Structures are given as structure tokens and as C-alpha cells.
């Protein structure tokens, strides 16, 4: 046993040392921001503190769903600013969990494209500020797929040589959107007949999939495991960065417009500081970091105009214009239709 005793002793000493070195929070003006890791510059919070004197702390979440669950169960206590995708803003607003924005305290909103003020889930940006936006479409290996895909049906009813070399997103809204768009329906439909038709199409499509994949689809393209994947445009760019033969296309039936936004929680005790943070993020140079580093488009006009044209050449989907984006249908909260919708998704995912 003494092997273990010594081992345990070593662990304990280590822990004690660590516990002592964990510093406790200080009392100065402070805001907490929850975001995906790596979705903003590593030194952004430091710069913000340097400029405003407000301490900003970073919390991380893995998915929209998780931060939603946490905010709903915990009433948002402890958080000041959240990064969430557009369909969730509507729900948060209806649940009374986000604060109305005081535009006078966020002067840099002037940097946004005018189109950004017309987003359906939050017209006039009363409660949210868009951070990044984009489309969902097909990401494929030019060298392995010919002719190039043009329609959602190329994904859902692939040619024989693509069978088993395709992945789709399994997050409910985007999974269903592929079928809805292919069938000319609204991506926000909860109509029973539409759901049924989409379900049949997706169950049939499932047989030809390599897998569902929301996280590593681009590396499957790089390794050649998959030839075509259902992807968010910005995320497809990671594949393009590794292999220039990877291309992105918005199918002819159209795409959805997704927007990652920033909201201030209703529970925030430092709303003015939170507004200052939003304003800081909207600065052109901060906005420009996003397309230059994580290859997502931003609704920040000043930032996009400053973008290196070489990047747009390498990653063409960075060049999609705001007007093109706004022509895509936007994902909305499904409200009471959610029950029927999620049962349909379960049926698809559970089918053989």
C-alpha cells in the first residue's frame, strides 16, 4: 500500500500548493462574459481593462444549448454578457433574461452595416448586438466531387460515388433546415405536413451518411474520409486553410442566416460596464480580428472594409455581402411548435 500512500501524499502536497495559489476575486468593478473559447482575441479582455479600468472575466461555454440551460436555471446570475446564436436571443428576450440595450452608451453601433439593424429576431437591435454572421451550406472537396454540388438534394440524395462519404449537422435546427430548404419550405416551419415530409427525406438521406458531425467535419474533408459535408461557412474555412481543394457553396435553394450575438443579462449588476464592453467589441480593429483569425464574417462594416483582400481570395465565403446574407431566411425561435419539431428530430436520429 505504501506505493499509494506516497503517491497520495504527493498529490495532497501538490493540491495544497495549488489551492493556496488560487487567488480570490477582488471587489472592483467587474463584468463576466461567457463565450466559446477562442472566439475573441486572447488579449481582448486585458485591452478592455486597460482602456476602461473595468475588470472583465471570461467564462466559457461549449454550446448555445448549454449556456441557455444554465442561464434559464440560474436566472443568468453572475453573467453580464453572453455570446449566443440568433434563435436563442428571441427566447432569452421572451423569458425576460436579457436587458434592453441603451444605444446611446454603445456609440460604435454606428460601425455596423445598416442591414444589421433589420434582423428579424431582434429588429432595431433592442436587446442584442450581432458579433459574427454567416450561412450554412455545402463544404466539399473539389477534387473528389464532380460535378460540383449546387443543390441541397446533392447532399440529401447523393450520387452513388458519394454515398458513405457525406456528413450532416445534427443540431436540430440546421439538420431540419437542409430538408426544409430542399423542399422549398420555411426553415422555421412547424407545420405537421412539412415536418413529416422533411422527416421522410432526412431518414432516407441518413442511409447515405458517413456520420452526423457538428465539430470535426472539416477535418474529415482534409483526411479524405468525407468528400462533402454540411457546414457553417466560417467553419468550412478551417478545412480550406489546410487544403485548397476544399470549396464552399450555398445551394441554389438558399441557406439560412445565422448570427452570433452579444446580449447583456437582465441579472447584470453592471449594465453600463457591459454596454462599454459591447461598444469596445464593436471597434473596427477588434471586429477585424474575427475574419482575420477565425475566418468568420462580421457585421462590422468598418472591420470588413479593412480586411486583407488576399484572405477573401483564399476564403471566398468571407466575401459574401450583407445583402446576400439578408436574402437568406433567418432562424427564429419555434415557440409552441418546438415540441412537435423536436419529436420529429428524435425520430430521424433514432431511425435505422
Amino acid at each position, binding site marked *: 500500500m*505504501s*506505493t499509494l500512500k506516497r*503517491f497520495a501524499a504527493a498529490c495532497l502536497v501538490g*493540491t495544497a500548493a495549488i489551492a493556496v495559489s488560487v487567488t480570490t*476575486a477582488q471587489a472592483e468593478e467587474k463584468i463576466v462574459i461567457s463565450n*466559446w473559447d477562442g472566439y475573441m482575441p486572447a488579449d481582448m479582455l486585458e485591452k478592455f481593462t486597460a482602456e476602461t479600468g473595468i475588470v472583465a472575466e471570461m467564462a466559457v*461555454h*461549449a454550446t448555445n444549448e448549454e449556456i441557455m440551460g444554465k442561464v434559464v436555471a*440560474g436566472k443568468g446570475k453572475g453573467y453580464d454578457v453572453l455570446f449566443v446564436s440568433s434563435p436563442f436571443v428571441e427566447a432569452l428576450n421572451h423569458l425576460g433574461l436579457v436587458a434592453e440595450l441603451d444605444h446611446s452608451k454603445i456609440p460604435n453601433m454606428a460601425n455596423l452595416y445598416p442591414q444589421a439593424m433589420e434582423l428579424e429576431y431582434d429588429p432595431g437591435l433592442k436587446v442584442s448586438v450581432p458579433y459574427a454572421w454567416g450561412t450554412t451550406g455545402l463544404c466539399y472537396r473539389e477534387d473528389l466531387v464532380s460535378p460540383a454540388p449546387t443543390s441541397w438534394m446533392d447532399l440529401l440524395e447523393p450520387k452513388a460515388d458519394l454515398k458513405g462519404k457525406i456528413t450532416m449537422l445534427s443540431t436540430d435546427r440546421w439538420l431540419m433546415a437542409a430538408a426544409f430548404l430542399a423542399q422549398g419550405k420555411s426553415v422555421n416551419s412547424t407545420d405537421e405536413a412539412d415536418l413529416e415530409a422533411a422527416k421522410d427525406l432526412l431518414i432516407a438521406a441518413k442511409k447515405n451518411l458517413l456520420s452526423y458531425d457538428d465539430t*470535426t467535419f472539416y477535418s474529415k474533408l482534409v483526411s479524405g474520409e468525407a468528400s462533402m459535408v454540411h457546414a457553417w461557412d466560417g467553419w468550412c474555412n478551417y478545412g480550406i486553410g489546410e487544403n485548397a481543394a476544399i470549396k464552399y457553396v450555398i445551394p441554389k435553394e438558399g441557406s439560412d442566416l445565422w448570427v452570433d450575438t452579444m446580449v447583456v443579462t437582465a441579472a447584470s449588476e453592471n449594465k453600463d460596464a457591459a454596454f462599454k464592453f459591447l461598444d469596445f467589441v464593436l471597434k473596427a480593429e477588434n471586429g477585424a480580428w474575427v475574419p482575420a483569425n477565425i475566418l468568420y464574417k462580421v457585421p462590422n462594416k468598418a472591420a470588413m472594409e479593412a480586411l486583407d483582400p488576399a484572405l477573401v481570395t483564399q476564403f471566398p465565403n468571407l466575401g459574401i455581402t450583407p445583402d446576400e446574407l439578408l436574402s437568406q431566411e433567418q432562424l427564429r425561435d419555434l415557440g409552441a411548435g418546438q415540441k412537435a419539431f423536436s419529436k420529429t428530430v428524435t425520430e430521424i436520429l433514432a431511425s435505422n
Partner: protein
Amino acid sequence: MREFKRFDPTRLWLAAHLRLVYVFLYVPIGVLMVLSFNKAGLPTVWSGFSFEWYGKLAENAAILSAARNTIVVAVISTILATLIGSLLAIGMEYRRRGAGLEAILFAPMIIPDIVLAIALLSFFTLLEVTLGLHSIILSHVVFNIAFVCAVVRTRLRSFDWSVFEASIDLGATEITTFRRIILPAILPGVIAGAMLSFTLSVDEFIIAYFTAGAGQSSTTLPMQIYSMIRFGVTPEINAMASIVMLVSFTLVIAAQRINKESVTG
């Protein structure tokens, strides 16, 4: 039994099997160690050798503080759960009672993590408990108790309780009896329970996420890693895991050496 050192096929087969099981357990670890030297940031594709991720890890304050938090949570919750769970196991086996209690003890294993996570967060919110590392620890202890208790009880089945009375009879107090008689007898079970508990706690994500306070000071490593999914789980994490493996491995081997020397010397 040892006297006969004859050819024993069962023994050979067992030894071979054990080696294979260790190979099975360590092959993926080998893969992630190799990937920690991967040049590109892709989680599953090899694209050239590089040390850069170790350098980036050293600079990544978020990952390092998350690793620290994880160890704090795992160690403290393991100590608490081992203590409470072992006592509970002894109490249950000694008294041989409580089908109801047995059900409650199964519960933390069966209840889906997400349910326990939301339940605890709702409960803490209701009581207006400030969240932080401490609330993760409180929550991890819940399911760890169940696992420790199960392992220790396994050990205690058919334990000869008369040694307990024998010790009292010889003048020992119950505390002394616990320390000198019961504890040594169940120690392998307690150690097994503690290791189980530590391992579960180090890797637990959902409950930790929901019961954590907002901010870096209560972000654990799994939370940090899962939050990287969207923009790529970089080989930094593999580098981190490789270091953890190497350090723990060295500790175990060193402890084993010291142990051997103290036995022979």
C-alpha cells in the same frame, strides 16, 4: 501454492491477457501524445511535427488555471466523498439495513448527469447560494459518494464483524477500532473507491458546468476543452494531457521504486 513452479497455462494466459488490456488502455493515450506534436490544429489529422503547442500551452493562462481548478475540485471532492462514502458503507453493512437507502445510493449513478446538473443549479439558485468551485465540489461529492460506497461495500460483504467486537473487548475505543482494525481491512476498497472518485471527478463536465460560478476562477479543464470544440480543440490540450500522463506515470513508478527499496533494504 508457490512451492510448485510448474508450467501453468492459465497463469500464462492471465499474464498475456493483462498485458493486452493495458495495451488497449494505453494505445489511445499514445495517439494523443503523438498528436500533441501535430503541426496543424486539426484534432484528428496528422500534418507534421512541431513543439509549438507545448510553448502555447505554457502561455495559455486559461488552460493552466482550468487544470489547477480541476485538481482542486477532484482532490477535495475525492477526500470528502471517500470519507463520507466509506462511513456510509460501513454503517450499511454493519447494520444490514435500508433498502430505501440502497435506492438512494443507486440514484446518483442512474440519474442522467444533465438532470442532476439542472436539479442542483435550480436548488442552488433557490437558496441563493453563490456559485464557484465550492458548489462544483459539493455536487461532485454527491455522485462520488455513491461510487465509493458501492466499492467499499463490495469489500465489506462477508466481513467478519466479530473482529470489531473483539477489538472493543480488548479495550479499544470505537475510534481506535475503526482506525486500526476496520480501516486496514477495507483499505484496498477505500483506495479503489478514492481512485474511482478522483477519476470521475477529473473528467466530469456537465454537472461541473452547471454548478460552476461564472468566470475563469471556477472553470474546470473539461469545461475549457469542450468550449474549444467550436473553434478547434487544439493540440495544446493533447500537450496538457501528455504532461499529466507523464507526471503521474513518473510518480507511480517512483513510488513503486521507493516502495521496493524500503521492502528489500
